[in-house]
């Protein structure tokens, strides 16, 4: 029996097909695309792949498929959109168990009647639970609630050899055995497939206030950010939007809670931010969106992480380096958390084309050096292949040899999303 026939046997002919150009992952077209409906089917597909030596990739809503390096090879692409069930919502325990293809938007709607939320708000349209785990995607509310690593409490995975393993469970407090789930967060599928996830939930606050202020310089942005984070306010988010260094930036603080609590916090926040601060009930347009991609945004997207107090030097370095290479920048920072997203485009034309690959690669490399003193890292989230050929999208990683040893144990034949991760993993 050939591989295609075996795949058909697992999940039915209608859910397996040869790959087409539209299925390409970063330019690599898979031989087959299969859409399994359960952990069991995934396991069976992985066993077929094992026996036939197929290299396996995975996609949720494709919102972050361009992340990482192009796969070194891709024979079987698993599409998890059929695995979109919320399996259990234990409202009294503030826990939800879901399949990886569940979209965050759908989950939000489903939890809303219980006034609960999974406090993850990455902006990528259609983002799925599996994609968010694989890419460690986060949004503005990470300031208060943390990221996937703070919310994921249990996981089911299928390893390259077909082993189905669980770790953690459905209680928040649990230290039995290794926290295997952490390894799968941000691993872009290189350790196997996540087929079920259990998250802790948070109550949806009754009221929200949004405080915004214009900032003229990176120094102001840094100073005000520090004022807020050093205060006794408990903001849900603290975001900086700076579409063009020639103009001003805008700092937005979101506070939530019961009605009088949110009001009081908003007033204190406005007091801290000084003259010009405005209080409203709604977040500004384009809230939390990435400053790249889409129809009109720049084609190159970076994520810069650094010490939270280094906002000013990070912005200064970015603008200086980009200017040197004639590139325009658009920045959105989760300023309170030290994480900034950057769109890079050609200076003369901020349109889709992006600058010449060499200039972009040089910018990334120089920016890495400039933010290194602040424990900084620069990851290229989105870029055309010609840029990825010039620069390692992940950059240097200190414990990469240890990471390779982990990969070798979990996937000794290197068949799970090979080549996409740090150090060629």
């Amino acid at each position, binding site marked *: 029996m050939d591989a295609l026939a075996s795949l058909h046997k697992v999940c039915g002919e209608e859910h397996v097909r040869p790959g087409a150009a539209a299925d390409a992952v970063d330019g690599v077209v898979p031989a087959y695309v299969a859409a399994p409906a359960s952990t069991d089917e995934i396991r069976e597909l992985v066993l077929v792949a094992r026996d036939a030596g197929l290299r396996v990739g995975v996609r949720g809503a494709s919102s972050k498929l361009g992340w990482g390096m192009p796969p070194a090879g891709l024979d079987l692409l698993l599409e998890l959109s059929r695995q979109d069930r919320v399996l259990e919502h234990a409202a009294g325990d503030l826990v939800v168990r879901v399949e990886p293809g569940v979209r965050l938007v759908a989950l939000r709607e489903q939890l809303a009647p219980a006034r609960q939320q999974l406090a993850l708000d990455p902006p990528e349209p259609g983002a799925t639970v599996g994609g968010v785990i694989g890419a460690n995607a986060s949004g503005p509310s990470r300031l208060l609630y943390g990221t996937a690593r703070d919310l994921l409490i249990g996981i089911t995975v299928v390893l390259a*050899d077909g082993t189905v393993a669980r770790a953690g469970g459905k*209680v928040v407090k649990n*230290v*039995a055995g290794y926290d*295997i789930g952490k390894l799968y967060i941000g691993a872009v599928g290189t*350790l196997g497939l996540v087929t079920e996830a259990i998250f802790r939930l948070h*109550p949806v606050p009754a009221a929200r206030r949004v405080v915004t202020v214009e900032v003229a310089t990176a120094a102001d942005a840094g100073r005000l950010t520090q004022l807020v984070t050093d205060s006794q306010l408990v903001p849900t988010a603290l975001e900086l939007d700076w579409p063009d260094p020639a103009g001003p930036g805008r700092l937005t603080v979101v506070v939530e809670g*019961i009605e009088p609590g949110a009001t009081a916090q908003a007033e204190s926040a406005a007091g801290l931010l000084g003259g010009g601060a405005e209080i409203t009930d709604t977040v500004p347009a384009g809230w939390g969106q990435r400053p790249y991609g889409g129809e009109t945004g720049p084609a190159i997207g970076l994520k810069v992480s650094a010490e939270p107090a280094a906002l000013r030097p990070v912005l200064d370095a970015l603008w200086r380096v980009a200017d040197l290479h004639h590139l325009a920048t658009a920045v959105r920072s989760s300023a309170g958390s030290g994480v900034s997203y950057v769109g890079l485009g050609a200076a003369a034309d901020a349109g889709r084309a992006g600058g010449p690959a060499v200039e972009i690669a040089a910018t990334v490399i120089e920016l890495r050096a400039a933010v290194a003193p602040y424990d900084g890292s620069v990851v290229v989230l989105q870029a055309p292949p010609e840029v990825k050929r010039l620069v390692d999208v992940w950059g240097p*990683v200190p414990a990469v040899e240890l990471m390779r040893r982990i990969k070798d*144990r979990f996937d000794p034949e290197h068949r799970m999303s090979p080549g996409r991760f740090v150090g060629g993993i």
Partner: protein
Amino acid sequence: MDRDATILDVMTLPVLAARLRAALPARAVLTDHAQCRTYECDGLAHFTVTPAIVVLVETPEQVQTTVRLCAQSGVPFVARGSGTGLSGGALPVADGVLIVTSRMNSILEVDIPNHRAVVEPGVINLWVTREVAPQGYYFAPDPSSQLVCSIGGNVAENSGGAHCLKYGFTTNHVTGAKVVLPDGELVTLGGKATDHPGYDVLGAFVGSEGTLGIATEVTVRLMRRPEAVQTLLAGFAGTDEAGAAVSEIIAAGIVPAAVEMMDALAIEAAEAAVHCGYPAGAGAVLIVELDGPAAEVAHSFADVERMCSANGAFEIRIAADEDERTLFWKGRKSAFAAVGRISPDYLVQDGVIPRTALSEVLSRIAALSGETGVRVANVFHAGDGNLHPLVLFDGSVPDQDVRAEAVAGAILDICIEYGGSITGEHGVGHEKRKFMGRMYAEPDLDTMQLLRCAFDPDGRCNPGKVFPTPRLCGELPARRKGVHPWQEAGLAEVF
């Protein structure tokens, strides 16, 4: 312990001791049996093993040297912080080296703008908060042992505390670590920033109970002191009523900083030990603490008070100041030791259940106690379902210890049955290895073992802990056909 003649011959340990003495300051290496015996156990004192060699390390380089020399001679080693662990995690190996970090006790850096502190592993938990309190900050994980336990131990156990309901555990408050791997290599994991590219190895290291290497430096997150803290203590007729109050508080969307409960027997013990003056005749006492922005706390606190009354609280006290608050907590924080007043011996159990199963599980424990005649006092983190049943016995009466252990074990089986965990904060260590196979299926344990083998292929780093049966890293787990055993047993649906 059996000595494996093919690995260690009689000269191995004396030669290793000589090498260690040559490489380290003389005061750092102990081989005298009486001296080494000081370290024979941790907080779980009924398991004892005297290590062959104890090394009192003072620097990261000394840790590295010691671990390298152990690797060269094929000798196992165990890290130890303050030795307060309650699962035997720091239990030494007889033919091995115990590496004690308590002399590595400097706070290396306090970085207020970044809300971080960089500390050595032997630094005591509470020292961090003391150091940064004047600037208005604190280190959130607050195990009851915080006066004595070390940050290295906290990292290894992923320790929690009363306030982890709202603020999370050690894993949520550690952003970086330097770790000496079992082959002696020093790696840097994370740092002051977050979201470092690569696998979240730091996340997997935290809570690995000393089996993946030795942390020589830890970067922790500092939290800003909340603007307001309000604490109440409520007396109820029984745990059902108190539990119902907790359910209502959580359902209202309130996330208290802490919700702690004690039952009648635990109250009796605390009263005898520290005279905390809890409401007379209470069958259960609830401590609820809210913190955060003042306006938020004031409003929610009134709600909590109302919910306690509505669910039958016959007395509610509100802490007027820090002294009263300390008094409320005194009874709770001394509960483990206090039980010594009402029973010659006791076992501290640590299990977790979904919070909503609290009242069912407590009646199961009461029934178990009734059937066996073994008394159980209950103290727990009611907000997250982390139970600490204290199983009382008299070691001088033959067989009582065995029966107490059976009851403590049966309680864990109940936790597993309800989809919970065999440990919420004390770790698996030496004590609970045999329960791992009940909570997890073989493939789950095999997968954890893959991680272990990536770090420690020779199995020399804290061997014999966490996992029920030691496996060699060469053997690849057998390929399995068919469904996951949990599904086969119908358990997947329960989960």
